[in-house]
């Protein structure tokens, strides 16, 4: 048959209270195998309490070459930041 197993992205929650973080990727025939492999490859030393695996082909990513126009709209909106607003020094706790 000579076909490569699909690629999966692995996300691990290191401990409760933290978000799942991208740890890397691996090949597996299906989701169940991807989970088992992810455990063996990325959590051999108790690095996680929860694992997500997502087939890489299901991820839609933004393209770095479009970054200027893609992220531009946020750049000129300084009024979204607290420091934009001028308040007298006497005002405390704000």
């Amino acid at each position: 048959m000579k076909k490569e197993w699909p690629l999966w992205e692995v996300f691990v929650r290191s401990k409760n209270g933290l978000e799942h973080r991208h740890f890397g990727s691996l090949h597996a025939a299906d989701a169940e195998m991807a989970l088992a492999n992810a455990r063996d490859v990325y959590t051999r030393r108790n690095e996680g309490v929860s694992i997500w695996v997502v087939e890489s082909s299901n991820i839609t990513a933004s393209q770095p070459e479009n970054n200027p126009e893609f992220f531009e709209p946020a750049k000129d909106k300084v009024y979204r930041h607290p420091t934009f607003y001028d308040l007298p020094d006497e005002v405390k706790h704000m």
Partner: protein
Amino acid sequence: MSEKEIKNLEAIFEQRIANEEKIEPKDWMPEKYRQTHIRQISQHAHSEVVGMLPEGNWVTRAPSLRRKAALLAKIQDEAGHGLYLYSACETLGISRDELYDQLHSGKAKYSSIFNYPTLTWADIGAIGWLVDGAAIINQVPLCNTSFGPYARAMVRVCKEESFHQRQGYEIMLTLCKGTPEQKAMAQDALNRWWWPSLMMFGPTDAESVHTEQSMKWKLKRKTNDELRQQFIDQTVPQADILGITVPDPDLKWNEERGHYDFGEINWDEFWQVVKGQGPCNRERMKARVSAWERGEWVRDAALAYAEKNAKKNIKKAM
């Protein structure tokens, strides 16, 4: 893209690296950067994978359950390191099958050290102490290299390597405190692994063709000779603690330099082994290719099973 535009992009790219910015897979990069990284990361991955073979030789003959469990865990780590690195390499647009094919066809290289045989149990100690010790020195600077996926893989690898070196040194220490025969076994392993370990840092700076470019891209932070010196300086006192002798009559502390002076490395041997004439080159590739070929039906069956289940689920949903 015109040549001028490429030159311009290249200038911006080099500037980003000079500013310690990381490069991520989808970023524009010069073709040479891509190819150099594919070569280096895949060589590194292949070395981890082939590195399991000399150690695998001793799993069934480890002298105690404690040693056996540790050796198995170490070998499993090497497999893990190979996998981290292969997937980092694949982000550069090469498939896993292509990478394996390059290894199996002999097109890609792996670290020559694994073409030496593991003749006694002491060799497992010497590998952990010297080979993993040298690997750590080579690898630590890579945690900060410019290509993001490689740097992240290396952070994980380096965290795990320290156990490898300590378990190796502990094996040596136990042998050196044992019977005269056991100590002689440790000495013999040091005799055989010392020079090949020094060769792991690659040719001398004068002979090294990639150093300048690799420095720029932060694939290297120190030159081969600097790293080799660092290894010698830190390893010789460890041999002293073991009470065994480094097999180099020219080895001598140089007060003025603040480093050990050492003898001439046999570069003919190094190039022989690189070119495929080491004691175990053929055996290693034969074992590797055979494992890959004999596993093919398992890979195919797993995929067929996954496809069948996927179809079943679609039917159920209809």
